[in-house]
């Protein structure tokens, strides 16, 4: 049995694994250091610059500069670059105040335009003049961590129910599997819609984040439990489990010490492959207006704003970037999951 570290090392040694794993790492770093990377706060509005196109970045006067734009046609949000006018961009310049990693109080940001006149929109601005790039960066927190949180709940529940019922068998197994079947019979989407509607008046929009994760996870554990139960059943027949039993170890100890390590590789692959489900689930719910709500940021919510017809007719393409972010995340997870599976299961590799 190889350890977790070895599995990851082996995955990163493969080109696809390095690429997708690196991308995921980068995305999570962005989410963790969102305050540092984002030039503007999530809700910083500028009603004079709504639907601003992405600003050009140029090199001049010994540093990076951002092109200045003029609102030439307020009725269609038409902006035109002002020739020869630009503002200096500062690396680690001053912006809004925040706590880095929740500890160090600072107001430095990776790249900002601290000229009060200037505007720096890496990916344009939205309907109330908020920086799309900053919202994308902050939104990644919701969209990326919803998967980790959800999968943790699912896997823990799945392992407990599946492992215990596989280990004990008999009546416990029967009851647990009927519960699992019941959970699988619940139509997930409709339950979500109903719960979301019923809970809406009781939660603020940022609390809704947790509510959604928990709802998603509590529906999702049944499938995992079923598979783990089958695996636990076969592991239970192995000689080392018998030996542990005869030595008088308790069931929970056996589960933890002997069964869990044998399931670990499966859990890892299953988790990696089902995180995209949560990312997409969050996006779908927010897109339908049932997930994260304004003014909080999440990729699904931002994408739902882009659903407006004017976005297409007036070519506000930068509002579609959250879709690209979702796409990249989901692909990266799927590819990385595939690589992990190849690593932990040498047989499929040879096929």
């Amino acid at each position, binding site marked *: 049995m190889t350890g977790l570290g070895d599995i990851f090392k082996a995955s990163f040694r493969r080109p696809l694994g390095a690429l997708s794993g690196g991308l995921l790492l980068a995305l999570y770093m962005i989410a963790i250091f969102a305050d540092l990377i984002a030039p503007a706060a999530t809700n910083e509005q500028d009603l*004079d610059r709504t639907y601003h196109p992405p600003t050009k970045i140029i090199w001049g006067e010994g540093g990076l500069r951002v092109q200045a734009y003029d609102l030439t046609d307020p009725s269609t949000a038409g902006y035109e670059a002002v020739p020869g006018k630009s503002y200096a961009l500062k690396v680690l310049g001053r912006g809004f105040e925040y706590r880095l990693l929740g500890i160090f109080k600072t107001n430095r940001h990776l790249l900002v335009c601290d000229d009060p006149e200037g505007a720096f929109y890496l990916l344009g601005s939205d309907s109330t003049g908020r920086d799309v790039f900053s919202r994308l960066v902050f939104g990644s927190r919701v969209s990326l961590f919803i998967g980790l949180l959800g999968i943790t709940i699912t896997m823990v529940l799945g392992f407990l129910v599946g492992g215990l019922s596989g280990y004990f068998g008999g009546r416990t197994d029967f009851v647990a599997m009927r519960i699992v079947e019941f959970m699988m019979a619940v139509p997930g989407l409709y339950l979500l819609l109903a719960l979301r509607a019923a809970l809406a008046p009781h939660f603020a*929009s940022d609390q809704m984040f947790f509510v959604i994760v928990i709802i998603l996870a509590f529906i999702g554990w049944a499938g995992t439990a079923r598979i783990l139960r089958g695996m636990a059943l076969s592991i239970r027949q192995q000689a080392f489990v018998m030996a542990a039993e005869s030595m008088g170890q308790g069931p929970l100890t056996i589960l933890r010490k002997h069964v869990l390590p044998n399931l670990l590789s499966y859990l890892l692959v299953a988790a990696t492959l089902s995180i995209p489900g949560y990312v997409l689930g969050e996006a779908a719910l927010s897109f339908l*207006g049932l997930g994260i709500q304004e003014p909080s940021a999440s990729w699904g919510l931002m994408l739902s704003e882009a659903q407006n017809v*004017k976005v297409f*007719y*007036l070519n506000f393409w930068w509002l579609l970037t959250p879709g690209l972010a979702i796409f990249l995340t989901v692909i990266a997870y799927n590819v990385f999951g595939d690589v992990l599976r190849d690593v932990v299961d040498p047989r499929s590799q040879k096929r």
Partner: protein
Amino acid sequence: MIDFKAKVCGLMLAVLLLVAGCGKRPGAERSFQEAPIPVDAEVVDFPQGNFGGRIVETMAGDIATLNPLLIESVAGSTVMGRILDSLVTLDPETGEVIPGLAKSWEISEDNLEYTFHLRRGVHWSDGEPFTAADVLFTWKTFFAKERDGATGVVVADAEGRPKYRYPSRSTFTQLINGKEPRVEALDAHTVRFTTPEVYAPFLLFGGGEEILPEHILGSAFENGTLLEAWNLETAIQRPEAIVGLNMFVLESYRPGERLVFARNPNYWKVNPAGERLPYVERLITKIVPDANSSNVAFAQGKTDFEGIGPDNVAWVKRGEERHDYTVLDMGPSNTTNFVWFNLNPGKDENGKAYVAPHKLEWFQDKRFRQAVSYGINREGIVRGVFFGRAQVLHGYVSPKRKFWYNDAIRKYPYDPERSKALFLEMGFRYVNERLHDAEGRPVGFTLMTNSSNGLRVEMATVFKENMADLGIEVELQFLDFNTIITKTSSSFDYEACMLGLGGGAPDPYAGKDILMSGGRLHQWHPQQVEPATEWEARIDALMLELGRHTDVEKRKAFYFEVQEILAEQQPMIFLVSAKDYVGHRNRWQNLQPTLLGGLTWNMESLWTEPEP
């Protein structure tokens, strides 16, 4: 021999089927007899055009019924407004009351009696004559009482009021301070209404009621099934049963798909050459899910006339040349957007206050509401959210109602410093830029609004940021429209709400349900038994006077004072009013859009070369 017979039978059957097949074709089944042109036909003064055109338009949302007594939706009343007509109507230029089915009227010296002279020779779309009996019948349906079968005594409801047989919106809107107007027919073409007290808007409100056909609905009225008449089943199976006096009759209806109207062959307006109008042969109304898809259909050149949302104008305009249409700016609209705080001091049945007492105390202080009003960046909303296609709204009346609009009311330009000063005056303090009240509680509230309206969601986020600049934390809650209505009208468990009002009748008295403290739509504290505050009592008194006076200048003075009180007290904090935009295809002739009447007020005179 037998063989031959069978063959003939078969042939005859085939012929019969063919005939039946023809009969099923829309239009062919109608047995409308064309009545002679009325003696009192109205001659419409537009250049003569060609008959036979076809209008295609879209409608956002389907109809629920076509029974005029039950219609509550905009879609339903638009459709019925094409079929039914009323005694008087409004001048699309001046907004004055002008003749409709009544060619003239007199109002008695004491302002209590209204005598309408109906046009002679007018016929319903099915050829039956239109007389005073139809007007009487219409009003009878509003006020018919439930009577005890055995004794004939009027049945009373729990509160002692008589129980109506067919309670409809008209039943309640036509009651004048709880009393019914009297209607009588002096002869076949003269109707007299007597109001129980002087009631200024009667000419418009009473005369504007759509007249129902007695010869069609009379039997349903007698046997108690009037509320089931003219339902969707009727519209699908027997559209010809829905007869009217307006320029169109229903030809067919497919739920969720489309309504087809045919021209009324007995319409009472003629062109200068004495030919019966309207020019168009058919009006096809396609049903679409929402206003956005309706705008998209127009921008692709698929429909003839369209109202365009302020945020869609920019891209709809781009197709003007390609699809040969024109987009017109019709100026400010009637729609208003506003925020209000729940000022209801009541408790629910568990004894829990609707609004936490310390918050209610803030909300009830007019300085708090004024401070919030000063803190809203309305210009920014107009510029950023509406692309400049809206205007800042200072008070209850939209500037579109030029005549009733009081520009001298207190205004609240964006001035956060002034807001802060007002808060400090109330004894509030700033701690770390967060606003705390006199007892040291941080100031914040929850604002609910409906999530289906994109522009409103954007306004709400701007509002939140504006309040954050004042050190107030606003929690946004996006709910569906029906939940909001439940909260504002029965459960009252909310703190603040952002909604909009649209349309509304041109007489200011129509706002009594919103403005008077006992009103159902008196949002911030509805259905009060006694006015809770002095200023609400004053508004109640002014509104009563507004109803009782017929002198326009006096009425204007009353209404101006109402607006001043509202502006001073800020129970409704108004934000912006979007502008109206309409579009039409260029092939239409005789178009004469007006600010009040819109694009198609003279639809009977519109014509185009029939399509090949």
